[in-house]
Structure formats: structure tokens, C-alpha cells
């Protein structure tokens, strides 16, 4: 049985963030803010070349410098699943910015100063960093993340395209992007005998503890990871990053606790990025807009160290019906840092190409782009016929269109001019898989009906701590104030990472289960709760592992209105709206923040964000927040999100589908489509900056 959405209680109400006052008063503690005695500081030395061999190193000495670690003297690490964690183990340099040494000193200034003075002897080799769709090294990976086939195909795409009344054959490019959380990747590490304590900024204390333990040949229980507050991650803190390993290694060597906060510039190389993509989309349709063929072929990069294959075209396997279809992924291994997860990996870049191509098809057919999408709505999963557990995409398109005011939109582009501005509107779909991962929780209640919830979840700014309070309060029928939730600590019951928009589903399920067990115990109790309290634990593992994952997705539709300056090509988003069907929404206040946060990041993807690669050095040259632009408040004049009351108890007992990522899926395409509608110019190379519009003859 699921909780009824009409049941009075905390769930579904706009509870303010529990830790909000701590954050706004600066008293919430982050990874390098924990008071630790005798702490010393580390600073990274990064490779100035993109490929080569480190043959020697000369480190300055000084009173305050304790050591300079490099592969020539660093302790040998045990075993790594992620080669990026094998820090200071090998002379091989695989990308510019790779950590090659670590200076440890008594003060931050001394560490930083000495790091600047480290002299590296490097045998440099020629590097290859530019992704091209004709790169000779392109290959098809065995699978794309996390375990999808690289290529799928059914029917005869080529024949269908030849026979189609109307076709679109377009290539969209998205640049490398960087997660850039506000709090950098940072760790305070200390050893207490053979146990390691890490105050670390991450998206999953349990997972990080296991990964770090493996690297140092320890048991997971010997590593204690604390991440009580985390200043964002966007995927880049979903697994242990080199900062945690370096800090722990240094602490072991010098015998003091070590603090290491990566400088902003190092976040552009050492912790991951979203791969650039080159995506060709071909669509074939009948004259009345029924798709006969969909092909989505993706080229992207990975590093020399590790095959990370972004699942960019996978989203196309779920969106629209068509009898003939194919998707493919090819990778080039380049001398670049390893790409990793960034908010909606796969879906975010993939939907740029698909949803812009669909818009181009609508224009070619003379059809309204919403109507075109509705005509191709599948009854079941288009590739394998699995039924959807729930799919309200068409409802989102229709209701969103009504709320946004779509009906008066001229079909033709370049129709609306207001002063010096061209004005246009655009639409794009949104989807994200409804995921859940095994988690455990323990709940205790005392004689005063105070409730303590323990789960090794983490709140990276999403509001997850707050919604777990709400779940426990409702299941146990206690006021919210009676609930205390402990998260962000690997010594708590093991929980999954804050990733895949699965936090509320995964941890909420565990908390819900533990509270239900406890409620059951309470009903059998004769007399008051004993002074020692009562507790119950729940492990979702068996249920999660037997869950059918296919056909479970959240859906939505994004609507954008843009103004484009006719003199300069500057684009401003006057309205951005998301209409979603995401199962149950536990907290409308934090949910709205997640939606508009994702949409804002989508706005950045459409208009601003680009990591600019310098071919000569193999470095991303705009490696700080002054030069890597993310949207400012003034870039969007009105932004809002709404959602349907969707009930789908098959996804998990709480009926939540996940909301952390869907806002960035499709919102960039809605903006790019609106820019076309405003100006008549199709920019197929993100971000759409003024120079690309201004130099287009059609502008």
C-alpha cells in the first residue's frame, strides 16, 4: 500500500530545508572546515603537458614543507577500479592537469608556495586532444553507461529514410562541460591507528568508504567518511576522487591530519567532465508527420586511462515510436582527463540533438512541434515493447502548452519583433529513468515519541535530509519536530549515492520500510515505549534487486520564450517553464528548487557553458568561474515548474520517480528551438553565443 497523497501530514507540504538556517548563517560544516588538531595542508602539482613521462622532480625545501610526494617516493596503493585513483603511482602522464606531485606543509601558504616551485623533468610526447567525427581511433565500446548496449537497431533505417516523404539529417555538437559545484572537491584526512577518517565532500559516504578502503587495502569498516553538508556535486562527487586518496596518503606519510581542497582550476581536470559530443540524427516521416525512421549516431571521447562511455543516444530508445530505428555510440581515446558523470549523463546531451531534430522535422513538415510529438507517442517502449509503468508525456505537452500560452504561436520563424528584439518560443520533451538503489535505514523511537532516523544518505543541496524527516514523521504519525535525521556518515546504515535522481526513492524507501516495521512493533506493544526505546531496520536490497526496471521513466515538457537582440545576437530567456510527470512530489518547495535548478543548468548548456579546449596545450583554458560562464539571475526573467499528480506505486513504495536531473533534459533544446523561432537561424553547435548568430547570413 502507498501513502495517500490526500492524507494530512508532512509529505506533500512545502517544508523549509531543515539545515537552511545553518547554511545561511555559515555554521554548516564542510569538508575542510572541521576543527582538527595539528592539521597540515596539501597542494597539488599538476602536469603541464598532456602526454609524456615524468622522469624527475626537484622540490623546494623550506621550514614549513613536510614532504613532496610523487611516484618516486609515494606509498604503493593496493588496488583501484578507477585508474584516476591510482595517484602518484606511475611516471606516465595521460593528460594535462593530471596530478604528478603533492606538497604537504604546515601552512596552506607554504604548501601552495612550494607547489609553485616544484620543478618537473618530463619527456614530453605529442598529444591528441581534439574530437572529430572522422577521428581514426573511433571505436565502438562494448557497452555504454552503466550497462546498455552501444548499438541498437531494428527494421531498415536506410530504406525507410529513402522512402520517407520528409527527412531531416542534422548534426548537433555539444562541448565539454564541467560540473563546477560551489564547494570544490575537498578532504580532511586523519588516521587513528589503522582507521582512516575522511571529512570529504562527496555524494555517497558508503560508496566512498568502500572505494577508499580498497585503494589502501583496508576493510570498509576501517574507513569512516563524514559528509554532513556538501556544497553541490552534479555527479562529479559520486565516487571517490583523487583528493580523498591524496589526502589519506599524505596523512599516512606525514603522521598528521591533512587538508586538501582542490583549487577551482584543478576541478577542470582532476574530477571529471561531460564529454563533448558530435551527434548525427536522421528522421524520416510520412507527409502527415508519422515517424518511419529514427537514427541517432553519437561520437564522443574518453581518456587513455579509462573507458567512460556516456549513454548519449540511449534516451532516443525511449522517446518516440518508429518502425525503423538505430542508435550507436563511438568513442575516441584522447589525451584528456577521464570524463565522468554530470547531471543527466547521456540524457542531457542526447536530448539536445533529438529534440532539436524533431523541431527541425516539424518545421519541414509545416506541423506544430507539439502536435508532431503527440502523433508519435508510443504505446509501449519503442525498442522492446515493454509496457510503461506510467507515461504522461502527452499530458505534459498539452497542459504545459496551455499554461505557457502556446496556442497563439506563429508557425513560421522570425515573425515577432519587439523593439530591437526578435522574440520566439520553443518546446522540447524531457525524460529521465526512474531509478532506485539498495539502501538500509534504522529508525528508533523513545518514550517521548522522539524519532531518530539513521541512513548513510547525503544531502548535496537537494533537500533530501528534509524529505526524509517528512517520510518518517508521516509513517510514524509524529510531528515533524519530533524527528531527527542523521545522514552523511558512512558509519550509519549503508546507503546508495546521491545520483541518478534516486535519493528520495532509494533512501526514502529504506526509511519508509524501517518506520513501517517500527509502527508494526508499536501496535503490538502493550504499555508505553520502554525507556530504552524501540528500533527497527530495513534493507531494500532484496526488493530493489527483484524490481523490474524497464518501462519506468519520468517525463516532462519544457517551454522557452527567448528574446534575441537584433544588433548583437545576445539571447535572453524571457520565460522558461517545465511541466513534469514525476510520480509523487514529497516536498513542493525543494522539488521546485530541483526543477528550476535543472532548468537553469539547461539554460547554461544552451547559452553559456563551454569548456574551451586549447589544442596546443591540451588544456581547458577557461578554467575558472570568471571565464566558464554559468547563468546569472539576469539571464532568465521568469522561470517556473509545475507537475501533474501522477501516481505510480510500481516504481517504489513512496511512488517517487526522481526529480534531480529531468530539469536539464530537454530544456536546452527548448531554448535552442526558441532561438530558431525568434530568428530563423538554426545553431547546431552549443552553446548558442552571440557570435554564432551574428555571423549567420540568415540573421
Amino acid at each position, binding site marked *: 500500500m502507498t501513502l495517500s497523497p490526500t492524507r494530512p501530514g508532512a509529505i506533500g507540504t512545502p517544508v523549509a530545508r531543515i539545515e537552511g538556517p545553518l547554511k545561511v548563517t555559515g555554521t554548516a560544516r564542510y569538508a575542510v572546515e572541521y576543527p582538527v588538531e595539528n592539521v597540515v595542508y596539501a597542494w597539488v602539482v599538476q602536469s603541464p603537458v598532456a602526454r609524456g613521462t615524468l622522469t624527475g622532480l626537484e622540490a623546494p625545501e623550506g621550514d614549513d614543507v613536510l614532504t613532496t610526494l610523487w611516484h618516486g617516493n609515494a606509498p604503493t596503493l593496493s588496488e583501484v577500479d578507477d585508474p584516476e585513483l591510482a595517484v602518484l603511482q606511475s611516471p606516465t602522464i595521460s593528460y594535462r592537469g593530471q596530478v604528478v606531485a603533492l606538497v604537504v606543509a604546515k601552512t596552506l601558504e607554504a604548501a601552495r608556495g612550494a607547489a609553485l616551485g616544484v620543478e618537473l623533468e618530463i619527456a614530453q610526447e605529442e598529444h591528441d586532444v581534439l574530437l572529430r567525427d572522422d577521428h581514426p581511433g573511433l571505436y565502438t565500446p562494448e557497452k555504454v553507461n552503466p550497462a546498455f548496449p552501444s548499438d541498437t537497431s531494428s527494421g531498415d533505417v536506410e530504406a525507410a529514410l529513402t522512402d520517407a516523404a520528409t527527412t531531416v539529417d542534422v548534426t548537433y555538437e555539444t562541448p565539454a562541460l564541467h560540473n563546477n559545484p560551489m564547494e570544490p572537491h575537498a578532504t580532511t584526512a586523519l588516521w587513528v591507528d589503522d582507521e582512516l577518517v575522511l571529512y570529504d565532500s562527496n555524494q555517497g559516504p558508503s560508496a566512498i568508504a568502500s572505494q577508499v578502503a580498497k585503494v589502501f587495502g583496508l576493510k570498509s569498516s576501517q574507513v569512516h567518511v563524514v559528509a554532513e553538508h556538501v556544497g553541490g556535486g552534479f555527479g562529479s562527487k559520486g565516487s571517490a576522487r583523487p583528493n580523498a586518496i591524496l589526502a589519506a596518503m599524505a596523512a599516512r606519510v606525514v603522521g598528521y591530519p591533512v587538508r586538501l581542497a582542490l583549487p577551482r582550476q584543478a576541478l577542470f581536470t582532476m574530477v571529471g567532465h561531460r564529454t563533448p559530443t558530435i551527434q548525427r540524427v536522421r528522421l524520416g516521416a510520412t507527409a502527415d508527420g508519422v515517424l518511419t525512421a529514427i537514427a541517432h549516431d553519437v561520437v564522443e571521447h574518453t581518456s587513455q586511462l579509462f573507458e567512460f562511455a556516456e549513454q548519449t543516444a540511449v534516451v532516443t530508445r525511449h522517446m518516440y515510436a518508429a518502425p525503423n530505428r538505430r542508435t550507436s555510440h563511438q568513442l575516441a581515446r584522447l589525451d584528456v582527463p577521464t570524463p565522468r558523470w554530470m547531471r543527466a549523463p547521456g540524457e542531457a546531451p542526447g536530448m539536445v540533438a533529438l529534440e532539436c531534430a524533431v523541431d527541425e522535422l516539424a518545421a519541414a513538415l509545416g506541423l506544430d512541434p507539439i502536435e508532431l510529438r503527440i502523433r508519435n507517442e508510443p504505446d509501449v517502449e519503442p525498442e522492446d515493447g515493454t509496457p510503461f509503468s506510467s507515461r504522461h508525456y502527452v499530458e505534459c505537452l498539452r497542459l504545459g502548452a496551455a499554461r505557457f500560452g502556446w496556442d497563439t504561436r506563429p508557425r513560421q520563424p522570425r515573425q515577432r519583433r519587439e523593439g530591437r528584439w526578435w522574440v520566439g518560443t520553443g518546446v522540447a520533451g524531457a525524460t529521465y529513468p526512474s531509478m532506485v538503489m539498495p539502501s538500509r535505514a534504522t529508525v528508533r523511537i523513545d518514550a517521548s515519541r522522539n524519532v531518530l532516523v539513521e541512513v548513510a544518505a547525503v544531502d548535496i543541496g537537494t533537500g533530501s535530509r528534509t524529505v526524509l524527516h517528512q517520510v518518517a514523521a508521516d509513517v510514524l504519525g509524529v510531528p515533524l519536530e519530533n524527528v531527527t535525521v542523521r545522514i552523511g556518515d558512512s558509519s550509519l546504515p549503508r546507503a546508495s549515492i546521491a545520483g541518478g535522481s534516486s535519493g528520495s526513492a532509494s533512501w526514502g524507501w529504506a526509511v519508509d520500510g524501517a518506520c513501517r516495521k517500527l509502527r508494526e512493533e508499536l501496535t503490538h506493544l502493550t504499555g508505553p515505549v520502554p525507556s530504552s526505546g524501540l528500533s527497527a531496520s530495513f534493507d531494500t536490497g532484496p526488493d530493489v534487486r527483484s524490481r523490474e526496471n524497464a518501462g519506468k521513466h519520468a517525463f516532462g515538457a519544457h517551454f522557452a520564450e527567448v528574446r534575441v537582440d537584433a544588433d*548583437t545576437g545576445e539571447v535572453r530567456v524571457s520565460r522558461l517553464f517545465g511541466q513534469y510527470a514525476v510520480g509523487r512530489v514529497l516536498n513542493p518547495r525543494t522539488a521546485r528548487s530541483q526543477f528550476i535548478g535543472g532548468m537553469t543548468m539547461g539554460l547554461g548548456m544552451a547559452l553559456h557553458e563551454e569548456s574551451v579546449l586549447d589544442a596546443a596545450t591540451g588544456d581547458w583554458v577557461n578554467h*575558472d568561474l570568471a*571565464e566558464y*560562464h554559468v547563468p546569472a539571475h539576469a539571464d532568465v526573467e521568469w522561470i517556473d515548474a509545475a507537475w501533474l499528480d501522477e501516481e505510480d506505486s510500481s516504481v517504489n513504495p513512496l511512488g517517487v520517480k526522481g526529480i534531480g536531473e529531468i530539469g536539464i533534459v530537454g530544456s536546452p533544446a527548448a531554448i535552442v528551438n526558441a532561438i530558431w523561432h525568434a530568428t530563423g537561424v538554426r545553431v547546431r553547435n552549443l552553446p548558442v553565443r552571440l557570435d554564432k548568430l551574428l555571423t549567420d547570413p540568415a540573421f
Partner: protein
Amino acid sequence: MKTFAYRAVTDVDEAVAAEGTFLAGGTNLVDLMKLGVAAPETLVDINHLPLHDVVRRPDGGLRIGAGVRNSELAAHPVVRRHYPVLSQALLAGASGQLRNMATTGGNLLQRTRCRYFMDATKPCNKRVPGSGCPARDGDHRNLAVLGASDACVATHPSDMAVALVALDAVARVTGPDGERTIPIEVLHRLPGDQPHRDTVLEPGELITAVDLPPLGLPSAYRKARDRASYAFAVGSVAACLRLDDQGRVDDARLAFGAVAHKPWRARAAEEALRGGPATREAFLAAADAELAAAEPLRDNAFKVPLIRNLVATTLEELR
């Protein structure tokens, strides 16, 4: 950051005598020190100098103390009423917090935002003379199209300085050899083969004030940028325009930002405008007269049509 000595001074002579790097608002210098781009031995803090006033001059113009904060200057009633181009330029720059710290003198002396200059791990002739200029073949989308050299294609990032150049403002400078005045138009240099020198200031010289002559004509600042706020210009225009009784151009002043190593006074365009019709065609032709000298690089040719359009529209709005 390299260890440095710090010394606060309270009068101008003491500042000039103190050998070191002047620290005003610190909004650029401190960043550069953190990045290892600047490594002064001694910081001479000039925030306590009595240079914080804006006063009316006998000729009706203004004398702006070098220590006047950007936010204060932008909000000054005389500036808002009589020099809107300056107020608009100031408010188009940086963020509220930065404008509260940044000073008039410091804004003029800010360094380029060229991404190679800002990264001490890469060559840059401006930072390390003779080390080379990777920007010319590398990342240069927001670098110079006018007046660049083989050695350097950097741009000056200030908005305020572009307005000051259009206003014929003059810097008052005190140095070891006494006082002198330097029109802002010639304060900043073109890079030539000495790109490490941003300005004509000699070692030890301190800007104490900026004089604004009276301005009897309407003025405006237009800035194009990659995001709506908190971004440097990719192109900007400061313009002043007055028409005569027949509706022809009586007086016009134009300066361009983000196109050169210095705020670019568009003398050729002004010459083309003077006495001519105040039409969009004439404005575009005037812009073309100035931009004929442009030598765009691979990725910044868009600045030519951008400036051209900005000139025409800004003048149209002023006529």
C-alpha cells in the same frame, strides 16, 4: 601566493616614495597574486589616501578622486545627470560587490582577461616578455581586432575606461618627478613589441584623480556580453552625439571596448560623422571607416559586425 610586505600610506608623497605595487580595491590584483600571475614584493595600500571625493570643478566639470569606488561614482547625481555614459558603463561592469570595492584608479589599471595571461603555467608575452603568444593561434574569441601586434592580441577589459576616453577625461598623476596630466586616451598603450607595458605610467607614478571636462551633449554606453550580468564585454560602445538645427551631426564622440589593448577612441568614425546626416546609413558608414583597420583573428571576426551594429543603434538612440 608569494609572501609579500604590506605597508599602508596616508599621503600621496609617501605613496610615491614607497617602492612597491599600489593596492586599491584589490579586486584584480589580489586575484592575480593568488594565481601567481602577479608577485609583488611589497604592497602599498593606498586606500587611506585622501582621494575619495568627487568635486565640481570651476569649469563645470568634475574631479574624481582615484580612490572613489565604482558604485559611488555610478550613483553620483552629477554623473547620472550629466555623464550618463559613465554611469551606465560602470553599472555594466562586474557585480555589485566588486563595484563596492573597485576604485576609479584601479579600474583604469586592471589587467587583461586574456586566458593565457591569467594562467601562469602557459606562455604569455605580457606576463613573461619573450615567452610567446599562444592566443594568436589558440583561444582568442574575445581578444583584439584593432591595434594588436604579433607579440600580443590582448584586450583591455574595462567598461569605465571606454566611457572616460569618449569623455576626453584626463588622469592626474603624481610621480617621483612631480605631477603631470595624461589624457586617458593615451594612458593605455598599444602592445607593439612591449606588451608587458599596459600604460605609459612610469614606475612609482600614482593616479590621484580623473578630471572630466564639461559635457554638453547626450551620451550612452552599450555593452554586448555573453551573459546578462557579471561578464566582461565582448564588444562595447560609448557614444556622445549632438545634432545641429538642421538635424545634422554637430558633435560626436565614439569609443569602443573589448576590441583592442586599450579603450579605442574612434577618431576616424567621428570625423566621418561630423557635419553629415544623422541616419543609420551614415552611422554604419562611420563605423566602417573606423573598422577598416580591423585585423580579425580566426575566431573573433564577429566583433566587426557587432561593433558596427552597436555604433549605429547607440547613435540612433541618441539622435
